[in-house]
């Protein structure tokens, strides 16, 4: 029997919030959560008591979890979730919140990702990231995902003939997008020479292949269509979503992600085809993983992303706009908020609120998530297709 999942007809996403990023902050993660919540309330006209649910993602709350945050910020909730899935957090949070609202378990759910970045935060987080990382990665000097993505990139280049220039084109296009996005931490254009000659980090990766950790927050609200109309806020419809974890564990090295298993279901449920997609937000902590998402979501075949990148212009005014706010590579990676960056930007795009980065006539966008290098590969994959009122 063909499996058919319920749709999201009566539930919407609204009030995308991006708290400006800073390279370092002396504030705690709770400060960024509070600031995001406040912005959600101001943007919606809701009161704090109207929030019935919270779906929180953060790496730097320790020793707290979302539970501690309820008391810390005086939130009395009837629905609470903590999503420790890094770059897939926004997709997964969205999925959980949509069902909570549709079922009536919570009328309004705030999805928030927030992280601080002290001078030593990143290093401290690495040592306790996962058991496998502590046992089998950190002792090799490769704290953090740099080495893991260096392996993937080197392998991908060797097997599929990708060139540094291909990844460079993607990074430069994102930087161009970022120059039109007010919150981006990188404010200068990037040239191909600068990209190619940047200092090496973990060969073949160089400086501009790697995200810069920073502090910040991203958030949005999930509520019923009726409630959104009542509040008078712009909202986006969710056409379809997917998620997968630890797909293809037998692959010797990660060359594909869980999107591949569900992509046909994703487009079928959304009732759209690839060419209907006006922009793509990938999870882009390194360019190779953006290439993999283009392939596994079906915009091109396996190993064809380099050619796809060569054939398209990827800026907001291009033939295939990617990471329209500049992505993490040019905006910064505010911990778990990095997983939300594409989602808030996509909501702004389809609701006509993207301002400088607006893709002309953007109606339908695809947001992809990827997260958690537990040992040698990212384990969480997800995607969502959003549509604006004009779609």
């Amino acid at each position, binding site marked *: 029997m063909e499996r058919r999942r319920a749709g999201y007809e009566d539930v919407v996403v609204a009030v995308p919030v991006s708290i400006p990023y800073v390279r370092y902050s002396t504030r705690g993660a709770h400060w960024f959560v509070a600031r995001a919540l406040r912005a959600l309330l101001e943007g919606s006209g809701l009161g704090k008591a109207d929030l019935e649910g919270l779906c929180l993602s953060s790496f730097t709350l320790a020793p707290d979890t979302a539970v501690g945050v309820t008391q810390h910020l005086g939130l009395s909730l009837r629905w609470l979730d903590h999503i420790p899935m890094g770059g897939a957090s926004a997709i997964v949070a969205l999925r959980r919140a949509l069902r909570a609202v549709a079922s009536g378990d919570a009328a309004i759910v705030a999805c928030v990702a927030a992280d601080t970045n002290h001078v030593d935060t*990143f*290093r401290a987080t*690495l*040592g306790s990231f996962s*058991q*496998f990382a*502590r*046992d*089998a*990665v*950190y*002792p*090799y*000097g*490769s*704290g*953090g995902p*740099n*080495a893991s993505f*260096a*392996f*993937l990139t*080197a*392998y991908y280049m*060797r097997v599929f003939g990708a060139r540094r220039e291909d990844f460079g084109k993607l990074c430069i296009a994102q930087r161009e997008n970022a120059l039109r996005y007010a919150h981006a931490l990188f404010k200068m254009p990037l040239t191909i020479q600068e990209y190619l000659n940047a*200092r*090496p*980090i*973990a*060969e*073949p*990766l160089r400086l501009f292949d790697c995200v810069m950790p920073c502090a910040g927050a991203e958030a949005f609200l999930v509520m019923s269509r009726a409630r959104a109309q009542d509040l008078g806020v712009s909202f986006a419809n969710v056409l379809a979503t997917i998620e997968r974890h630890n797909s293809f*564990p037998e692959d*010797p*090295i990660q060359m594909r992600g869980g999107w591949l298993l569900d992509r046909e279901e994703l487009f079928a449920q959304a009732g759209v085809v690839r060419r209907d997609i006006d922009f793509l937000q990938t999870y882009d902590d390194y360019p190779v993983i953006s290439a993999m998402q283009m392939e596994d979501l079906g915009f091109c075949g396996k190993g064809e992303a380099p050619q796809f990148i060569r054939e398209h212009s990827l800026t907001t005014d291009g033939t295939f706009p990617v990471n329209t706010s500049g992505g993490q590579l040019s905006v910064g990676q505010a911990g778990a908020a990095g997983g939300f960056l594409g989602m808030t930007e996509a909501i702004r795009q389809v609701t006509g609120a993207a301002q400088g980065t607006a893709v002309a006539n953007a109606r339908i966008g695809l947001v992809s998530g990827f997260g958690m290098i537990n*040992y*040698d590969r990212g384990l969480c994959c997800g995607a969502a297709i959003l549509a604006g009122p004009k779609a």
Partner: protein
Amino acid sequence: MSETPGRPKRKNPLLRTRVPLLPPRGRSRVALGLTAAAALGRFELQVCPECGTVQYPPREACHRCLSLDLVWQAQSGEGELISETVLHHSHDLYFRDRMPWRLGMVRLDCGPTLLAHLHCGVAVAPCRVRIVARLDKAGQAALIAVSGRFDICEGAAEMADDIHLREMTCDPRCRKVLVTDGKTALGQALTRAFVAAGADIVWAGCAEPWKRSAGLEEVERLEAVTVVPLDVTNGDSVKSLGAALGAKVDILINNAEVHRPYGIAARYGTEAARSEMDVNYLGLLRLAQEFGPVMRARGADGYSSATAWVNLLSVYALSSFPTHGTYSASKAAAYSLAQCLRAEMQSAGVRVVNVFPGPLDDEWNQELPPPKMSAQALAKAIVKGLQDGVEDLFPGEVAQEWLARWLEDPKILERELAIGR
């Protein structure tokens, strides 16, 4: 990355001695199985007896069938280097001091993919490699991919010429060695073996330097060898040698021992036992107090840092051999103290190597049947153990057999030894 092994430059004495930093030490308990095997120079992975899956990283259950009864089994380490990187940046202070650093992903023929250090002799990916397990400077297992072409030597020569991986072994090459008793047949054999292995200086301790044996005088004619006065039963003697040499010794070989046969009933009184304890146990304590702190301070002192402290123990330290009962007791005491010393030296990255030989072919084991180990064979095994980076060394067939029996069931071994087997 692959600096040629040539002679290290003489250290500028005005430069600050590097603070001993260690690679990350934290491991889950289940991952320590890898360390336990590496301490014996073995590369073992978890194997599921139910479905045959070999897995890595170590887990609490089989990731295929969820069986909880996993066993650690020796692996050939054969596999393919599928991707590699050179790190130019690390968040870890130990590695930050040692950039650039080459790492690889290795797909073992038996299934799992491993992250490993790459030896400088390994070709560009893809290529065949072999994984070996070594103890890193923190005393924890680290996996190293070496070129598959090296199939004879267990890592010694190939490891020695990699400037980074030299830290994971204790190669005597270009190092200064103190042998605490140079007078015995073993002491002479050790002295010669270290000279042959490329040590810069070997100091041979002699309790009564005015009474040299013919053998020692011959050894002393070797250019690198100097005989020094050292009586490990005399606190002042140990102290004054410590003051003179402590800051120079890179490898200390504590081979001074007293061995008298018999257990309790066959030798009345405590005199023999007292002299065994005075040398075998208290001698170690005296040495550790005078040489330990200064060797700890030099644990990260560049290419020729203080690197190892070797104790000559005995398989009898694990379980008493009743016909050599008081000797067994003194070695058990020394073993326990050596574990304490190991814990104290570990924070400085100085490895305490315990050697557990079976009976030596010497005057005190005349009544035992062969096989007995010659002084030359034991000396060679100790040098190789240091080159291989082993922490617990069971040289020779007898020692290996005792180890296997002891690991299988210490109680059964005790019963067997009680009836003299």
